[in-house]
């Protein structure tokens, strides 16, 4: 399992990357940077960790084309920038780094995407974390509600004790970007499981209906594709408190992907899957059978939806028979449904009928 590195360790790891370039020049060869191939063709299941990780395929970025050469130069600038932050005890957002690169001349980023990707490249090659680099994401973390108590160190360096039911308003507890031990400690809880919810509308519906108290659970709003810190805190709660995690999403190909990134690891962050993924998470719904069983209002699959489903059929993370059945069934139905389509049967249907029935299947209600 990955862990935070000290500034010295981080610098040393980055210097290895720099030295690879330097040594190649000394040898009279074009400088290079070696990193794993980051596509679904190069992820495999790590039995020991229970998550998907990058395989052995390596790609060598060498300075024989202008584009690659610029990437190498940018990487050097990023390394320099991180060293400066480590020395000064500062952090910056990825977006700030993108703007700071304006002054890097030829090493300037062409787009924010480039700088995000490069930060990830560096994480992968150095086996350090973005948090080690003092780089923060733009995306904000999730909201959480439920009878659980944690301790967060605020920006004045003081520890604050927060109960995510009694000390927060209706919007819940906001998960910060850094949820590592130096920032957050999980103290105690009185819940039976954690439910991750895709949409804000459904999250608020469950709160209004008092679902967290009736069913003794913690509710977590994912905000679509969950941020790293959201996945990380889910993983920590699941492991440290030994709680089951159920995932309640829309019933469409994109939700399947969200689930895969929660449970097995995302392709883009497969280098830190064991740090972000929650292998024990369970997909609660909406499943393809739910659409039929509950006769839910549904939309036709778009061309893109169908492409996504077909891509999932060949994705190693969906290789088990349950997922293959679900995906094939959705393709056959040609339909998808939103979480909130459950409102067809009234505002309380989801909390009084649907979720209890689904949770009962899992032995959680």
């Amino acid at each position: 399992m990955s862990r935070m590195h000290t500034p010295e360790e981080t610098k040393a790891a980055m210097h290895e990357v720099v030295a690879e370039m330097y040594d190649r020049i000394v040898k009279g060869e074009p400088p290079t940077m070696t990193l794993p191939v980051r596509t679904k063709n190069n992820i495999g299941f790590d039995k020991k960790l229970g998550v998907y990780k990058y395989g052995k395929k390596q790609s060598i970025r060498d300075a024989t084309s202008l584009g690659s050469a610029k990437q190498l130069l940018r990487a050097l600038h990023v390394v320099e920038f991180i060293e400066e932050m480590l020395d000064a005890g500062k952090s910056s957002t990825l977006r700030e780094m993108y703007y700071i690169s304006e002054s890097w001349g030829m090493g300037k980023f062409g787009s924010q995407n480039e700088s995000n990707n490069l930060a990830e490249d560096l994480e992968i090659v150095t086996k350090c974390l973005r948090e080690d680099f003092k780089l923060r994401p733009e995306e904000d973390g999730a909201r959480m509600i439920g009878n659980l108590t944690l301790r967060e160190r605020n920006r004045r360096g003081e520890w604050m004790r927060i109960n995510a039911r009694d000390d927060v308003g209706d919007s819940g507890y906001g998960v910060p970007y850094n949820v590592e031990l130096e920032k957050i400690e999980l103290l105690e809880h009185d819940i039976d499981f954690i439910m991750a919810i895709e949409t804000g509308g459904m999250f608020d519906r469950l709160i209004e209906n008092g679902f967290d108290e009736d069913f003794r659970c913690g509710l977590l709003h994912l905000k679509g594709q969950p941020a790293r810190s959201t996945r990380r805190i889910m993983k920590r709660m699941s492991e440290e408190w030994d709680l089951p995690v159920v995932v309640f999403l829309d019933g469409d190909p994109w939700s399947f992907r969200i689930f895969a990134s929660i449970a097995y690891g995302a392709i883009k962050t497969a280098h830190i899957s064991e740090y972000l993924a929650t292998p024990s998470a369970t997909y609660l719904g909406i499943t393809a059978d739910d659409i039929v069983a509950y006769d839910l209002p549904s939309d036709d699959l778009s061309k893109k939806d169908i492409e996504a489903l077909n891509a999932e059929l060949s994705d190693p993370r969906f290789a088990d028979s349950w997922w293959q059945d679900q995906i094939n069934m959705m393709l056959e139905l040609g339909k998808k449904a939103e979480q909130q389509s459950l409102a067809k049967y009234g505002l309380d249907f989801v909390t009084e009928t649907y979720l209890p029935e689904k949770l009962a299947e899992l032995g959680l209600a």
Partner: protein
Amino acid sequence: MSGIAQKLASNQKQVAISEFFEKNKHFLGFDSLARSLITAVKEAVDNALDACEEARILPTIRIQISKLDPKKDIIKLVVEDNGPGIPQKSIEKVFGQLLFGSRFHAIRQSRGQQGIGITGVVMYCQLTTGRTTHVRSKIATEPTAAIVDIGLDTRKNKATKANAGREMWYNEDGSSKEHGTEITAQMKAKYQKGRQSVWQYLRMTSIVNPHAEIIFIDPEGEKHHWTRVTERLPTKVESIKPHPHGIELGQLQRMVSESNDLNLNHFLLNNFSGVTNRARKELCQAAELEGTRKMKTLKGDDIRQLLEAFQGERLFNGQPAKLLKPPTNCLSPIEEILIKKGLSKTIDSRFVTTLTRVPSVTQGNPFQVEVGLIFGGTMAGDKPVEILRFANRVPLMYQQGGCLLTKAIESVDWRQYGLDQAGGKGVPKGPAAILVHLASTNVQFTSEAKEALADNGEVMEEARKAMLEMGRGLRKHLEKKKKMAKTKEKFELINDILPAIAEKSAQLLNRPVPELSGSITKIMSAVICESTTEWNKETKQTDVDIVLFNYTTRPRAYTILATWPEKSGAKMENNDTGGRKEALGVWAWKLEALQPGERKHITYSLSGLERGDWTETEILFRGAQDVIGATKMDEKFLQEIRRQEQLFLEGENENTQSAQTKNESSPEPNPQEAPIAATAPVTTEIVEPAVAPPEGQRTLFGGDV
């Protein structure tokens, strides 16, 4: 159409001019309010250009259009030139004369082949607004300008003049005007923008008249300025006599009836080109006519027989009579470099290629095709290319689809040359404009409207060949551009990025900056050629620098070849590397082996060119290893150059005499003769006038000029 005209001419004694005009307005160019304005501008500008050309003056023409009454579409047009001016007594003739009965057997390339000239404008103004046209003209030898208002008495069918007088003529800056003509006309017309507009007409005129400065002030007061890009006037064209292959029956009948020659022998020798003494004998025998026949005795059948002999339908000893080709020095092509300048100044672009084909002959008429292609810049990439058609330097703006020149463009599969074209047919799409110019002594149009060229196999073939060659030029340019972009990237890589990587990595690791040469050779792994072609202000020469780098690990040997505008009279100077002539316009240098890491410069200058004449040198090579930035020599391409060279040299010898005359021709204006010559265009293609004048009226002044 000609039916109406003939009816008008023969049957009706008293035809009102207004009626005549009304019935024929579609081919007089006055069929719509928008087109009427273009026609009026066209007649005035063509006259100005012709007069200046004749008098060897560099034209400056100012056109101003203003709306007098927007509700009624009344427009005021002022056209001013710096031509030789018209002597007072000739003004009425120029502006009141209908252009019929001119000597039809003098043949040469001329602008004034369309419409009925400025007289039509005077008529149109009078008929639509009841206003006269004000003319002011000054010749250099007189201190004051002549002024007169010319109009039309519709009841008496006569031109009128009023308020004739003389006055001082001052320029805007207060100096007195030396010479020139200005007309001020008021007419019912509509000013429009777009593809068929005064603006487009002037823009196109400017492209093919790079020696002219044209200033246009539109009704919104906006000033459009097309500058002069060359001091070179178009070559003076020689008149030639018609060639027997190009004669039609009506024309021959006229020539016979108007002949003052002693007999048929003299008639044939005196009035035709390509007729040698031997040819004369053969023609007479083929026509079964005695050479000593008096001209007056030749009747209908005789003339028909003669025509059949001309056309090779009657044979001499089983063969058509052997005639020489007509001379081609009666043509005045714009020439490659000037088309290039004209296009470049008008259209923003990245690439221009132009081509003037060697003159050719169709049906006894010499003709020459010129093409230009301009690519890139700010032109729209997803629209059909702009087609710029010209006949004898006159823009053709209507009936694009039906024109031979358009068909020639459409017949080429442009996809292979880098333009989009659905199915390889039709007008291609892309950020480009294609110019086609037909110079000919006899431009055949599809109709009296004279906006589209009629089909002609030989002209089509020439135009097509020119397009194909131009297309190859475009393809090469695009390929080169791609390669150059790659080369530029590589250079940026080794000159900027790699040193920065070395420096930054050394600094981060706190180690010395490493040596780069090994990495550079590995990264480039190629031989690279860079060239610059630049105008040198001080020496007034075009400096060319070619540099070859060997970024490989082995020695490399090459022959480097470069194109240069030898055909346009350029001379190679300071060519210290020596080398030898490979073909017309291609020089070659055989280089010693270039060692790894070595570079070699070839430099020379080109004299005898103006600034902007030559801006891009094509570099070719012979050798095993590819050279980035140069094209491998295609020996077929060399053969084609050599073939054109042969034709070019033959043409030079043929035209040597005229070339000398044109060089000696005096640049002094000759106001006494010029205006008459300039405004009496020889409309040779009108064998029978399509528009017959009202009976008994050679000019609007009743034929009394």
